[in-house]
Each structure stands twice: as C-alpha cells, then as structure tokens.
C-alpha cells in the first residue's frame, strides 16, 4: 500500500469539504473493495475520507411504502434487519449472501453500488425493485445510476447518502457464486411490485454490468411461476466469459437462477 492520509468525516458536508481539499482523495466506506485494491498497489489515493461514521448515513427505516437504507449501513445490518426481513425478505437474503461474515460486517450498500462491480449482488436488487438512489446533490433512479461495468452516474466528489426501495408484493434473489471469489457468476433478482409490474434483473453475467430480461418479465406478468421462465434463455453474446465460466454456461445459469428465484419469492 502507498502512503495515504486518513480523515474521519463528521457529516456529509464535512466529507464533501474534505474531498474538495484533497489532492486525489477517495471516499472510504467499508473498505472491502478499496483497501484490497490499495494493498495491491492498484490505487493510490492521497487522502481517504471515511464515511462510515457519519450518523446521517446509517440506519434502516420504513418510510411511505418504501424501505430507506443509509449508504453507510453494513450488509450485515441489512441482512439482520427486522424491517427488511419483514418487508423485502429477498433483499435481506441477498445481503446475507454477500462474501463472508467479516465482509458483511464491514462492507456497505453505498460502497457496493458506488463501486458497481459487474459481479456484485446489490445492483440487481436496486434495478428489480425500482430503487431510488439519493446523493448529497440529487436523487436518481437505479436505472440511471448504473451506467456500465464499474461505472455510475456519480459526479466527482458526489456522495451516495441513502437508497430507497419501494416495498414489493414479492421478491427473491437467487445467486450462483463464483467458486473462487463467491461473487455472483449469475445472480437473478425477481420482483413483483405492488402495482403488479414485474422486473427481472441479472448481475454477474453481463459484460456491461446489471441488466434486465424483459422476455422473462412479460412471461412472469401473465404467469408467475418457475415454468414461465424455464424456457427463456438470454443470448450469450453480451455475457461474460472467463476462466470460471463461458458465456453459454452463464446463460444457462441465468435461466436456472431465475427459475429458483421465482420459486423462492
């Protein structure tokens, strides 16, 4: 790791101000992506501005038909939250399946979505549930937030402060983990909104990060059952292919995980 300077921000405004002053600063949340990257000397921020102790950015609450989760809330807090478990059990299960206990106690939802790893779990939930991302500057839909592999709509210095998930009628997540990293090789989040709208979002498999499968969505809209998606496969053309799995294998996993998610919802 290169030498760096650590700052613990007291508030969102303080964090933004610190970032202004830094030569080449980076926000630090759970550090579960950023610190390993720094240890491998692949990142060399001059300053680290720690968001994880900002009280306004932590916590889970039920607000007007939605569940609001502070950006600095740990995966473990989401997984074990009675509110999330009651209202969006699929989301609690997703958080409980991220990494291992140590990762879940440190890693945060804000860090995960800001990083937008194409194999991360959360992006699929945000898309399928139609979540809204709030930053220190604006609010934007999940669809607008995720712009591609490791890419988001965040501007320089912009801070994700919370994510708000409309409570669905039902939802579930099914993940096939990469045998080495345990990130998603294919993770499928299915949700049926209170308005009846169905969304199917896939993570881990796409070359450009999370994507929706509209063919499955329309099939499920008329018939919410595993059988409805069993015959639908996504094209392998835009899927990832690496030493762990070919695009064809991932395409198969997308269908299988979709079936299992529907059955679990």
């Amino acid at each position, binding site marked *: *790791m290169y030498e760096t300077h650590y700052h613990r921000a007291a508030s969102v405004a303080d964090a933004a101000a610190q970032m202004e002053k830094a030569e080449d600063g980076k926000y630090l949340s759970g550090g579960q992506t950023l610190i390993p990257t720094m240890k*491998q000397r692949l990142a060399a921020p001059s300053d680290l501005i720690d968001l994880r102790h900002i009280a306004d950015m932590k916590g889970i609450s039920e607000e007007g038909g939605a569940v609001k989760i502070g950006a600095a809330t740990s995966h473990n807090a989401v997984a074990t939250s009675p509110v999330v478990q009651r209202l969006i059990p699929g989301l609690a299960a997703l958080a409980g399946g991220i990494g291992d206990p140590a990762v879940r106690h440190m890693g945060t939802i804000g860090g995960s979505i800001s990083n937008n790893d194409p194999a991360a779990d959360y992006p699929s939930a945000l898309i399928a549930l139609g979540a809204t991302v709030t930053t220190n500057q604006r609010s934007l839909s999940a669809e607008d937030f995720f712009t591609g592999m490791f890419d988001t709509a965040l501007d320089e210095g912009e801070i994700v402060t919370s994510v708000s998930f409309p409570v669905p009628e039902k939802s579930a997540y099914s993940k*096939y983990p990469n*045998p*080495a*990293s345990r990130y998603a090789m294919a993770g499928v989040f299915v949700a049926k909104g209170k308005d009846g709208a169905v969304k199917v979002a896939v993570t881990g498999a796409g070359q450009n990060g999370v994507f929706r499968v509209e063919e499955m969505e329309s099939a499920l809209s008329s018939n919410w059952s595993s059988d409805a998606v069993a015959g639908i496969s996504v094209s392998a053309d835009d899927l990832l292919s690496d030493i*762990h*799995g070919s695009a064809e294998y991932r395409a198969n996993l997308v269908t*299988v995980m979709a079936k299992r998610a529907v059955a679990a919802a």
Partner: protein
Amino acid sequence: MGVQGIGARALRKEDKRFITGKGRYTDDMTLPRMTYAAFVRSPHAHAKVVSIDASAALEMPGVEAVLTGEQLVGDGIGNLICGWMIHSKDGTPMKMGAWRALEPETVRFVGQAVAVVIADTQGQARDAAESVVVEYEELNAVVSTIDALKGGAPQLHPEAPGNLIYDWDIGDEAATNAAFDAASTVVQMDLVNNRLVPNPMEPRAAVADYDEAEEHYTLHTTSQNPHVARLVLSAFYNVAPEHKLRVIAPDVGGGFGSKIFIYPEEIAALWASKRVGRPVKWVSDRTEAFLTDAHGRDHVSHAELALNADNKITGFRVKTVANLGAYMSLFSSSVPTYLYATLLSGQYDIPNIHCNVKAVYTNTTPVDAYRGAGRPEATFLVERMMETAARQVGLSPAEFRRKNFIRSFPHQTPVIMCYDAGDYDATLDAALKAIDYDGFPARKAEAAKRGKLRGLGLSCYIEACGIAPSAAVGSLGAGVGLWESAEVRVNPVGSIEVLTGSHSHGQGHETTFAQLISERFGVDTDSVSIVHGDTDKVQFGMGTYGSRSGAVGMSAIVKALDKVEAKAKKIAAHLMEASEGDIQIEGGELKVAGTDKKLTFTEVALAAYTAHNLPEGMEPGLKEGAFYDPTNFTFPAGTYACEVEVDPETGKTEIINFVAADDFGKIINPMIVEGQVHGGIAQGVGQALLESVSYDETGQLLTASYMDYAMPRADDLPSYTLLTTETICPGNPLGMKGCGEAGAIGSPPAVINAITDAINNNDLAMPATPQRVWLASRAALAQAAE
C-alpha cells in the same frame, strides 16, 4: 497434562501459543537496525534483460541499496541447484539450466526477480522497487506442458534442447508390451493432473543478519528443513561455510512441501545483509506467493491397462509429460520419477509395468513437491484406471479391485518398491460398510426423484512414506541421505529435552514426541520439551516432509531413548544393589522386580549428574544421541469412498459422504492423525473440485489471487467419517507408517470417480468445476438420447 502415552488423544501442547497469538514466526522477528527487502520482478514470462536503471530508486527516501544479478554473480554467489540427479534412458544426465537468485540476462517466468531494493521500511522498499526501470526485450513464451515438446516451441535453456530435461524410463518395456499383445481387454485413458499452488497460511519470509566481526550469518526463515537449507546455502550457494551460518526455522505456519526448497529470496537476503551491513527482512505478500512459491503436480499422461480373460491385470503402461516450470527446483526431478512411477502398482498385483516420463521446461513458476509429491499423481492414474476398467468389463469397482489385490507380503512390485505389510481387504471392507455400499442404488433412486444425480466412487490408494533409506535413495540419484537424528537430554531434575532434526510446521511434534517419552518413562508430558528448527541447537537433521517425522524422526528418538534407558537402569541397579536385568521402568520409577525397592526417575537423573556414586568407569550425565536410517519406505494404504450429488442444472457437486479408512500402522495420537487426514482430504477435494492454476498463452498467471484461485472452504466439505485399521509396519521400532499426505493422495480419484458415476460420463477433467460437470452431464444426456 499428565502421563499420556502412545494412543492417547492428548491435546496439542503447542496450541496454547498458536491460539493465543503468541507463536513466534519469522515475520515476528525484529532486529536492531533492520532493513527491508523488496524484489523487482519480471512482468514478462520470457524476456532478455536489456538494462536496469536504479538511479531514480536510489534517490528515494530510506533506500540503502539496489542490488542486481550482475553484482550477485560477481560476488560469487552460486546458482540454485536441483539435488536429485535423474538420468535419461540413454544414460545422459538431466539437463539443468542455470538459475540465479537474481537474474542478470534472461527472465523465464512472470515474477522472477531481477533486482532487490533494500530500504529502511517495507513501504519505502516497495515504492523504490517500482521506480527501478528495467528494460526488457520480450521473447515468445511456451506455457503448456504439451506445447513445450513441440517443434518450433520457444526454447528456455541452451542446456536443454527441445525443452526436454530428461526422458526417463522405469520397468520392463518389452515384457509390458508383450502383456498388452496377449491381453483380452485393454483400457485406455488420457489424464491430466492439474497444477496447484500450495498456499500455506504463512507466506514465506526471511530475516538475514550478517555479523561483520565474526563473519557469521544468522538466517530466520520459513523452512521445513533448516539443516538442509544451511547445507545447500553453504555448499552450493557459497554464502558462508556451515559453521559461519546459523539457520533458524521458528514457528512455521504450514508448508505442504513448498518450504522444503531454498529460494532466491533467502539467498539474496543473506547476501544483501553483508552488502549493506545491516539485517535484512523480506516477507512475501500473497501475490508473490502465488507467483514464486513452487507449484505442485502438472502432469499430462496416457495410461493403458491390460487385462486377461479373468479380468486380472497383466500389464500397466504409462507415458507422462511432467512440467517442471522455468527452472529445476531443489527436489523437482525426483517428484515425477522415483516418487511417482514407483507407486504405479497401487494395491494390486501387476506383473508388468512400464512408465516413461518426459520432464519439460516451460515459462511458468517452477514445480516441485506438494503434499504427496508424485504419489497423488500415481494414485490418480491407478485409481481412475481401476474404476474405468471395472465399468468397461462390467464388474463392480469393489469386486474388480479385490480380484487384483496383493495379499501376500513382502511383495516386490515391478517398479522398485517392496511392500512390507498391509491388508487391503480390511480397509476396503471398512469403507464399504461405513458408506453402506449395498444401499447405494436405493439412495441413487431417491436422489433422482429430487432431480439430483448421485454417484459413488472409490479410491484404494497406497503411498510410500518415511523417506527414506539413505543408500537406496543415493543409488537412485539423491544428493543427500534421508536418515534422521535425535538427542535425548535428561536434566538433573528429571525433566527431559528432546532435540530432533524433524521440523514441526503444524504437525504437532511437541505433543506426539512428548507422548513417546511419557510412554517410555512414565513421566508427565509437561516435563518434556521438544527442541527443533535451529541449527545451533540441534546437531543435524533432514527435516519434515514425506510423512517421515514419525517413522524416521521418532525412530531416532527411540534409539536415543534406548541408550538413556540402558544407562539409567545401570545407575539404578548400582544404587539399589540389584542386578541390571531386574530393573523395570514403570510410572516414572525404576523398580527392582519382585521387591519394593525403587527410585524415581528424578533421583536416578540427579545421581547421574552429581556423579557421587556411579558404577565403576561410568561417565557422568544422562544424555544420548542417535542417528536412525530406515531400512525401507513405509507403505500407508487405505480405501476412500466418496458419495456425491450433482445438480444437473448447474453442474454443482455436493459431497454427501466421505469415508476414509486408513492403515497408518501404529498411531501415537489419534486426534492429531485425524487432523492430518482432515486437512489432507480438504486439499485433495480442493484439487478434485476447485483448485487449478491458469496461465494465459503469454505466460501471465490468471489465478494470482483468491479472487480467481479457488481454495476449498469449510462449506465445500462434508463432515468426514474416519476409520483406521492397523497392520504394524515391520520396518521401524514403533510400527508406524505415516499419515501426513494420505488424505491428499487418496481423495482426488474418489471424488472424480463418484462424479463420473453420477453423470454417467467418464470423460471429465480435474478440477471438476461446475461448468465442466454441467457440460459433461449434458453430453452424457445427449448421448443417451441418441
């Protein structure tokens, strides 16, 4: 802890310090004025080093020196050696290319060091290492085992034309060919033994300290065999004569073979310490470990089995290409030859065996011994072939094996080994019973109802441990003898120190060796301490690998104990005015048989040291040493039975039940043995299902971190059923065989045999990743549908 002799499940004495974080590892050593080393490593798999410009690095804060290969060679530091001479079948010696600790001319694998930066802190050293500008001229690389021998393949070493290190044979080729000519059935397979990274929990490290006034070096390092390290560093690398070099291997966090070898970094650290006049510490990070720790296995083989009309095996023919990587590591040459092909008879009476091995260079990390070393490769071949042959001739795999078991001992195989004792039916019976072999069809049918494919696979392994008789290995090319030494010191107050040349890096010697003393003298294990891992304390030793610490290391202790016991009895007889033959040792006391006369062990020890009243002519003191050289290898053997369920939709394999029935001979501490088997099976299942090294075609290591290299985790493994049977090993005084590697040797074929049974397709490479299993099971379904 009390008196805990042979067979007691004594808790590990060393665990208190390990569990409470009080272990003393090499990285815990901090010396005054210490500097840190960081290596400048090649990003290319094959390239000429055109120039090295250290001027910018030398200007950076804290930098003491930037040292290169040219300086190292100029100072007379010798090339790295391979300590086992193999001759090709045409009689020519193996072709060894020059390997320098820092390479001045041509780098041959990604991660090879070309320079070392010495600085005040680790961070400064690493920062400066990045600022050393090395100009390379890239060369084409050859990466795959098979490509290495192809015409036109890039050449690694001028010494080894065609990248061929040796072309070696064992067994009677003509007789084996004749057996195939007469065969009723021939079974053929192509098999790949995947390349692995050892991944001990503690990465390699070294702290080197040169004392200018004494011209003396001290090296703390992560070694499984500190005396061998000292010998090699002195005799071949010209670092210092042995009496001017102390090597200490303190607590070592796992080795699995990878810490047997002497690597460039230790050599460079010692040399640099003299150059800069300050102690030098180097600690590998995990990426360096992936790139530079010797890898394991990497064989490509074609195997054929000849059967007669009665389904008895009449011949076994094997051709193997073994990838040794870019350089020949310390024992690399012996692994695919004498540690491999000599085990191709398995547990079976096979009259004719012939094996040809071609060892090749490639632009990859050097390959050497890794848990099992050669024997897992042999077992994988033999046991995949046995299962396949049984399926081909329509016999049950258990029955086919039984038909061919060796049942009389000693048994001379056609490939050097002479098995001394064993009962292969006993372990097979035990395993079949424990896994409920007969109930399998019902379980398979029940699984099918749940949409799962269930399979059962066996592996009846044999291995050779307790390496090894020195004269025998010497005649096969070993550069060292493989005996062991021990010294038993009884202190005046009766406590006992045992100095051993074995080295514990997770095996629990401090406990099991103390149990041996407790058994012999009836003393508390707490009054015994085991001293190892320091060339200044222990006279000499060959270290720990090849499951040799019990069969060889403890046998040396037994010999020393015999001498101590004889002297103690003489003293006791003298003091109690009894005849020596009437003295018995029991419960920590020396008694005169048939009387109530007795002395405590402590009283006898004290008498030996006060020396006020010793038998005429006896020297004072109670301390004896011994060397033990085994007469044969030992032959642990057993049956592993694995039952799996495959999810045909994803190809995911779940191990439902795993039974290991092992014959390890005499067992000192069953709990520690179980721990060894647990760890071994975890590594074997890792090889079978998860672990594999991938390089791209340019020689970049794709699996250089845990993000891509799949290590087995607790939830990948079932709760094992472990059983033992016992035939006493006649070759050593305790009747021990060894247990350190069996799990890793026996388990891979059991797992693959189970999966291929489940999916009804025998064509499945290791590791059986979900993708591979999915593809193979779909292929089988497509075939069935035709």
